[in-house]
């Protein structure tokens, strides 16, 4: 009794809270999709195209079908297919035309993986090779082969032919145009104009767990899909449409995932293929990629060719940005084609730019297609924008930090694109990152050393980023549902629509709920990752989970708290406003005096004449807007900023750039789980380091030349920089406990900062990524060509 009389502040907010599932993961007990085996399951393998671009003349699967242990072999001819993907230009199994090395020609389900793999070798395909369209540039030449030159016609739900995707007669898949202000006026007002062409390359997610799926139709022909999707509810609806099934008979269970990073936001052929095989064989079908297949067949980051013109006045005011981009859309359309939505936010609103024009074309080619990848186009846009911030500052002789501060927005500003910056820590991010890294002094010092004759050069560079921090209203709803119950022992079960993909969402939700209910973290179990059990959530993307699922969980928790306090108020004849929940008890708010344990109160509610349980629900829809047809609208409930300063060492005799230190200042609204957020930032910075310096998916004539970790270089432990991260807590009014989303932010501006640092070290500006040693060496020794803009015919 004595120990609980006066309850002191035991707030969980801002504390270091270990991830709830970490002990299980550290013991190797967690069962990822690769570790799950269902009774009677078959193993599936996919036969991919032997050519980059070809017509399929015939496929003979008879020998494969006859092989002992093979249960089914399917091609497009065997299945009634509906198209998948963002633009519905994509059938899971290809017929007629193959357009990339990934293309799925056939699939086998067999007793073992070995048999399935051997059976693939017995499938005979007769191809007529076609000329390869190896780049967006080639695709735009007059007379280029048309990659989707015919309408994609499929049987509709009523059996009649349906045009799923209209032909593209110029290989253009998607076009975006955005305009704010008056560009001509902005150009006229500019006293200094700079122009560059930037080339952003192919990289890939390299999740440590390869892609996999298990599909099973139960005895009532309901589908259970074990999927690593990041959008289970969207998936459910799309599969229902695709399979001609009632969505209510599809259940998606998400096993623990070996990394997401945006790689699992679309439907990729391997999942429908596994489902077709499961339906055909009436057995569970498990399909797991090899690592090589993962490199070849999972979506990449969107490569971008970007032309940027920017201008400012001599007193350092930005006046305009004019951007054109060409996106290699690859063979089929996935989320990569929609990266312009995000890119235009940065181009129009990272720093105050009154006049802006943005135009982009996504163009089909025979290359692998791009999906969504942490940052979603923002790395590419920021790389260009921040290069120009440095160039403009230099052109007018202004200090690069002062130039940025002059143009950085303040809280309360509304951008021409309609984004309302309610909480905004931009200026603080700039100042804090600069101060902690000694940026201004070093920037001058290193620049002065250009001609000192040393082979090793030091440089420091800065870049900032803007990204959504309160969801992104691109789907009809950007919400998340929560169901919460508290049992007779004050144990909370939180059923959340939000998926946990390794980012720690379940821990942060538990933390928020425990904080609200005054309970220890051990008192909460989080249930997620099952569409039959949890309420709807649009998915894990756009750094939205802490903000939106957090507010949803808080809503449900507050309702539960209100109910408990109302019961306590009645019992103790005190107003509910005078009471609180702390340390597992109902207490008097002012004095901290304990009145009763929560569990006891709940039991008294339960075992009474008017029996009641504590069960609450809440659906949180953020107060953001859909963009209008001109892409204007307050698309997120909050926005987040970060500034990163990169310090590098450039060995001018080898071109090796060593990333020595990254200093970051991140506007996160409020730190909830300090351990979790630090880990997200560390990981994001190193992912950005890979993008800038080491990772390069080499594609030549449509073929990936380096589909292995041996030749696709992820950053390893000895290579990481010193990382110093400061959190700017702007206490967002809408965010849960003031927090904003941070999942993507730390990866977004690393490459931009490194590019600026290399310039500061050497006087050479490189506008193409990656900064591999040979690329840097060539640039330093005038043996490379800057990227060249391509004009449409």
């Amino acid at each position, binding site marked *: 009794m004595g120990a609980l009389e006066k309850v002191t502040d035991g707030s969980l907010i801002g504390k270091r809270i270990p991830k709830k599932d970490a002990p299980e993961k*550290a013991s190797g007990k967690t069962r990822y999709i690769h570790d799950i085996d269902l009774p009677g399951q078959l193993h599936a393998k996919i036969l991919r195209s032997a050519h980059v671009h070809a017509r399929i003349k015939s496929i003979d699967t008879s020998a494969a079908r006859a092989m002992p242990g093979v249960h089914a072999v399917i091609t497009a001819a065997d299945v009634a297919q509906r198209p998948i993907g963002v633009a519905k230009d994509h059938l899971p199994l290809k017929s007629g035309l193959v357009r990339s090395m990934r293309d799925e020609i056939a699939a086998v389900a067999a007793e073992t993986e070995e048999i399935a793999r051997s059976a693939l070798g017995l499938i005979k395909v007769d191809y007529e090779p076609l000329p390869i369209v190896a780049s967006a540039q080639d695709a735009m030449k007059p007379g280029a082969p048309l990659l989707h030159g015919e309408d994609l016609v499929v049987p509709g739900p009523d059996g009649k032919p349906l045009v799923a995707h209209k032909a593209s007669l110029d290989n253009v898949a998607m076009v975006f145009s955005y305009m704010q202000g008056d560009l001509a006026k902005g150009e006229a007002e500019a006293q200094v104009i700079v122009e560059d062409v930037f080339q952003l390359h192919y990289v890939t997610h390299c*999740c440590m767990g390869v892609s996999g799926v298990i599909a099973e139709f139960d005895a009532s022909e309901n589908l259970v899909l074990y999927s690593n999707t990041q959008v289970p509810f969207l998936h459910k609806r799309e599969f229902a449409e695709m399979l001609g099934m009632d969505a209510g008979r599809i259940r998606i269970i998400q096993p623990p995932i070996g990394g997401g990073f945006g790689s699992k936001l679309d439907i990729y052929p391997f999942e429908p293929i596994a489902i077709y095989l499961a339906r055909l064989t009436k057995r569970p079908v498990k399909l797991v990629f090899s690592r090589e297949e993962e490199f070849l067949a999972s979506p990449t980051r969107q490569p971008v060719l970007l032309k940027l013109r920017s201008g400012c006045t001599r007193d350092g005011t930005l006046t305009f940005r004019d951007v054109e981009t060409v996106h290699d859309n690859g063979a089929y359309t996935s989320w990569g084609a929609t990266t312009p939505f995000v890119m235009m936010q940065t181009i129009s609103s990272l720093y105050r730019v009154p006049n802006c024009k943005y135009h982009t074309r996504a163009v089909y080619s025979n290359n692998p297609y791009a999906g969504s990848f942490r940052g979603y186009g923002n790395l590419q846009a920021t790389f260009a924008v921040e290069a120009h911030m440095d160039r403009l500052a230099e052109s007018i002789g202004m200090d690069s930090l002062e130039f940025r501060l002059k143009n950085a927005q303040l809280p309360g500003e509304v951008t021409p694109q309609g984004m309302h910056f309610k909480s905004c820590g931009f200026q603080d991010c700039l100042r804090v990152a600069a101060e902690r890294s000694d940026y201004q002094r070093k920037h001058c010092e290193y620049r002065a050393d250009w001609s000192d004759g040393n082979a090793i050069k030091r440089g420091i560079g800065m870049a900032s980023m803007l990204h959504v921090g309160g969801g992104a209203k691109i789907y009809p709803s950007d919400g998340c549902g929560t169901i919460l119950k508290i049992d007779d022992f004050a144990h909370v079960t939180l059923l959340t629509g939000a998926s946990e993909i390794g980012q720690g969402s379940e821990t942060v939700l538990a933390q928020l709920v425990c904080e609200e209910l005054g309970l220890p973290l051990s008192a909460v179990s989080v249930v997620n990752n099952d569409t039959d059990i949890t309420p709807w959530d649009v998915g894990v993307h756009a750094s939205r989970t802490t903000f939106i699922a957090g507010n949803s969980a808080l809503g449900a928790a507050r309702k539960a708290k209100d109910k408990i306090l109302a019961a306590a108020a009645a019992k103790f004849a005190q107003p509910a406003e005078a009471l609180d929940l702390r340390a597992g008890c109902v207490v008097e708010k002012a004095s901290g005096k304990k009145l009763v344990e929560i569990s006891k109160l709940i039991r008294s509610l339960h075992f009474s004449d008017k029996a009641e349980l504590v069960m609450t629900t809440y659906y949180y829809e953020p107060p953001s807007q859909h963009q209008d047809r001109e892409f204007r609208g307050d698309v997120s409930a909050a926005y987040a900023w970060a500034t990163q300063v990169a310090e590098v060492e450039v060995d001018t005799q080898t071109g090796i750039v060593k990333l020595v230190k990254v200093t970051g200042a991140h506007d996160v609204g409020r730190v909830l789980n300090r351990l979790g957020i630090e*880990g*997200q930032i560390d990981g994001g910075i190193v992912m950005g380091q890979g993008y800038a310096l080491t990772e390069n998916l080499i594609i030549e004539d449509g073929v990936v030349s380096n589909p292995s*970790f041996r030749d696709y270089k992820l*950053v390893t*432990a000895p290579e990481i920089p010193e990382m110093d991260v400061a959190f700017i807590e702007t206490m967002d009014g809408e965010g849960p406990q003031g927090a904003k989303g941070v999942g993507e932010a730390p990866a977004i501006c690393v490459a931009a900062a490194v590019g600026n640092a290399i310039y500061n070290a050497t006087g050479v500006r490189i506008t193409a990524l990656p900064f591999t040693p040979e690329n840097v060496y060539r640039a330093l020794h005038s043996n490379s060509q800057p990227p060249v803009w391509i004009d449409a015919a």
Partner: protein
Amino acid sequence: MSANVDIEFRLNGVATRAKVPAAMSVLDMLRDLLGLTGTKYGCGEGECGACTVIVDGLSINSCLMFAADCHGREVMTIEGLASDPAADRLKKSFVEHGAVQCGFCTPGFVMQAHHLRGKHRHLGEHEIRRGIEGNLCRCTGYKKIIEAIADTGAIAG
């Protein structure tokens, strides 16, 4: 027809028998034949360390070792660390330092770190970074993993 090889070895301290195809890897034997799924397939070519196990006191990539070569040897997997107090401290350190996110790479790191700690009296940050250079992680950026390994308390033995 592939030859099958009868092997006898100690697996996590327990005398074990198995019949393995000649070309089968230790990784496949552990996961597919023996049902021990804690050791992970990351790449199959010794570049990522997710498959790290300890054989005769040395950490190795189980995807590269031939299962037949286990005959007469001592093999330890992540499951075998369950009853080792030093490993327990190490795992707790991973948890407390936030060194686990998606967790897929974690068993490989724990095995490698356990091996390093058993082998070196002193593990400075440099030795740790070099010691785990064969283990890839995509989530954490390695910083907290290095801190977790460095925060060893007393090194056993």
